[in-house]
């Protein structure tokens, strides 16, 4: 097929899931199985088109001009928002990742959501999410990105609160939505500033105009405001609180939305708008510090959690921090690479966790599992592959991408961030294998009734495991770093691969795994004694540094305090003004009514007095005119 023709039809990719959503919502919801089939068919078709597009993009020359078409969506004097598509290597990577993971998750959900009363609406939301997410990554301007940005937020809200009968799910959905509002507020302000100052929201037009403003205070302000969006959506500190709670949703949703795709939208946005962030070193520094801090902060919490999904959630936070840190040190390619590999192995881990939870009839505490490897071999081995990839064991995908980030930090001259990143890598390996040794190989009882999940769930696990093993090679020096060749941006740092860093990070990962094995499998150190010894730190970590409590306190005192002041103002000043006016009118009426005495003659007197006054005035006027 003609490549231009193919690209020109890329709008079908987001449109198909949207159509499926509408069809399920209007007609198909009566037949849950048909709804699921339609949804999977839609996303699979999108996946095939995405594959063709990726094939064409990566078959073409690197650095080729991006393909772009747009139609006017709305315009008024001074503002024009298009709905368009922009196809470059960045878009192609995201399209393939999103459609692939979404397809596998939807197939997996056939087993996981089997028999759920909301089966049809689950697939409707899944389709809506897929369409919105694809619309987001294919956008050619900030206006369109913001629309889809909010749409994926809505889907996230709907799917976190999917089991809305549970109070905790309701609360988590609201928390996610409101926390994202905070970030999106800054994001929208940044977009409005762009429109006001540059008069356009189109990426290509902005990229032309931005350089002359490089390092100006205006641009720093805009980039910091824009950054608020990714901080909210990608759950970076201090807006990270919603993501762990978002695990209240069905596990496949956690895999797709809260691990692989939607939370990566923030990182994607930084990559897409890299030409804006890259112009101010101050903003880049802020990005790197936020990312690095989040990575360390979340990894330390994950060390002690006991809920299997929460461990993975904090791991996701930590890895997102890694990607953001990569963006901050200028290694945009490494960040996107890690986004891609992370999407595969983290969705694998979540789906594996879902398989375990499904088998354990909704038990999520790892201490109540044990010996699962005998009962669920496929889940166990795919989970271990995912964990090895996450820990960064060569030659699995996570190793290559994590290594690129560490290389970016080291070669970019950010020694502190390199050490921090290595520390996080160590913690990652440790907490992942703590989970595995306790839940899959532990001697705790509780897994007797467990059984392997149906094929519809294990096959996606196997596919993702294979991808998790091999996906890293596209960006590895072994294959000439094809990924970095295409997915790059003006000003993005590129460094020569360093064997030393690879060796060091491999040793660190293996050390982490070894330590976890010593403590939790070999039991060379009694972890209960360890816990008692450092109970202070343990409590602090287990309670997530009391951030939630702090926010609750902040809202209870600060926000409610402001609300009280406004309430007082409303009660006494606004109401006082209105009621006071009514009171004055009423009182004057009470006094004035005594002039109405009902006597005809009094009224006659008033009339006469009136006539006399008018006459005198008229006569005076006549005399003045004559004089």
């Amino acid at each position, binding site marked *: 097929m003609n490549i231009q023709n193919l690209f020109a039809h890329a709008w079908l990719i987001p449109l198909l899931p949207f159509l499926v959503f509408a069809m399920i919502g209007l007609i198909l919801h009566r037949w849950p199985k048909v709804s699921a089939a339609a949804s999977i068919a839609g996303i699979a078709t999108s996946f095939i088109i995405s594959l063709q597009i990726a094939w064409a993009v990566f078959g073409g020359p690197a650095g080729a001009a991006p393909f772009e078409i747009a139609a006017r969506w709305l315009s008024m004097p001074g503002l024009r928002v298009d709905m368009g598509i922009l196809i470059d290597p960045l878009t192609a990577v995201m399209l393939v990742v999103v459609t692939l993971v979404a397809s596998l998750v939807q197939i997996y959900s056939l087993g996981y959501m089997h028999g759920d009363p909301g089966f049809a609406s689950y697939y409707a939301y899944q389709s809506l999410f897929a369409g919105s997410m694809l619309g987001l990554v294919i956008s050619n301007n900030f206006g369109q990105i913001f629309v889809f940005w909010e749409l994926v937020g809505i889907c996230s809200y709907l799917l976190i609160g999917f089991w809305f009968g549970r109070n905790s799910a309701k609360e988590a959905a609201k928390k996610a939505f409101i926390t994202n509002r905070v970030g999106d507020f800054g994001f929208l302000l940044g977009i409005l500033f762009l429109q006001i100052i540059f008069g356009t929201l189109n990426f290509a037009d902005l990229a032309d105009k931005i350089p002359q403003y490089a390092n100006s205070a205006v641009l720093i302000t805009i980039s910091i405001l824009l950054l608020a969006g990714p901080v909210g959506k990608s759950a970076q500190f201090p807006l990270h609180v919603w993501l762990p709670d978002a695990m209240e949703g069905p596990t496949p949703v956690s895999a797709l939305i809260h691990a692989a795709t939607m939370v990566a939208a923030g990182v994607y946005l930084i990559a897409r708008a890299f030409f804006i962030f890259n112009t101010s070193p101050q903003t880049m520094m802020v990005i790197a510090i936020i990312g690095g801090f989040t990575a360390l902060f979340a990894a330390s919490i994950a060390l002690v959690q006991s809920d299997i999904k929460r461990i993975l959630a904090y791991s996701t936070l930590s890895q997102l921090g890694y990607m953001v840190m990569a963006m901050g040190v200028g290694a945009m390619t490494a960040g996107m690479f890690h986004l891609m590999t992370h999407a595969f192995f983290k969705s694998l881990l979540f789906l594996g966790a879902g398989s375990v939870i499904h088998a354990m009839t909704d038990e999520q505490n790892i201490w109540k599992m044990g010996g699962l490897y005998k009962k669920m071999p496929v889940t166990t081995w795919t989970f271990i592959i995912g964990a090895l990839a996450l820990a960064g064991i060569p030659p699995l995908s996570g190793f290559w991408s994590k290594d690129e980030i560490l290389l970016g930090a080291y070669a970019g001259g950010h020694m502190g961030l390199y050490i921090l990143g290595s520390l996080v890598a160590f913690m990652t390996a440790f907490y992942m294998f703590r989970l595995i040794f306790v839940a899959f190989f532990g001697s705790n009882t509780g897994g007797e009734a467990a059984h392997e999940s149906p094929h519809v769930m294990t096959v996606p696990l196997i596919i993702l495991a294979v991808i998790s093993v091999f996906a890293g090679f596209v960006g590895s020096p072994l294959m000439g770093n094809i990924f970095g060749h295409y997915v790059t941006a003006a000003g993005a740092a590129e460094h020569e691969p360093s064997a030393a860093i690879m060796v060091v990070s491999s040793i660190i990962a293996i050390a982490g795994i070894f330590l976890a094995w010593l403590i939790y499998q070999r039991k060379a150190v009694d972890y209960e004694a360890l816990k008692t010894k450092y109970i202070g730190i343990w409590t602090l970590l287990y309670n997530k540094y009391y951030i939630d409590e702090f926010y609750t306190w902040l809202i209870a005192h600060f926000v409610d305090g402001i609300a009280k002041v406004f309430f007082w103002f409303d009660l006494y000043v606004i109401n006082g003004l209105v009621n006071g006016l009514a009171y004055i009118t009423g009182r004057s009426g009470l006094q004035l009514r005594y002039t*109405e005495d*009902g*006597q005809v*003659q009094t009224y*006659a*007197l008033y009339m*006469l007095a009136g006539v006399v006054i008018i006459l005198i005035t008229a006569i005076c006027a006549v005399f003045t005119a004559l004089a």
Partner: protein
Amino acid sequence: MIGLSHYLILGCILFGIGAYGVIAKRNAVAVLMSVELMLNAVNINFVAAGKYIAPAAGIGQLFAIFVIVVAAAEVAVGLALIIVLFKARKSVNLSDFNILKW
């Protein structure tokens, strides 16, 4: 020599007396009579003006006759109202008819 101004002054005085009566008298019949007095003051004005300003047309007399006719009708209605009021309230004192009061 008696001129127009004398008639006008007479009309003024009569009108004033009538107006005073309308406002100050408490007896409804007296008020009605005061109204007649005011009407007649106007009649004098009409006739005097007719005589001194446009004698040929006779418009002044014509208007005076109109006023007398209308006044006769008005007195008939007014007296009828007073009789009805008297039947209802056993009084012709206007101070008793303050039912429109607040």
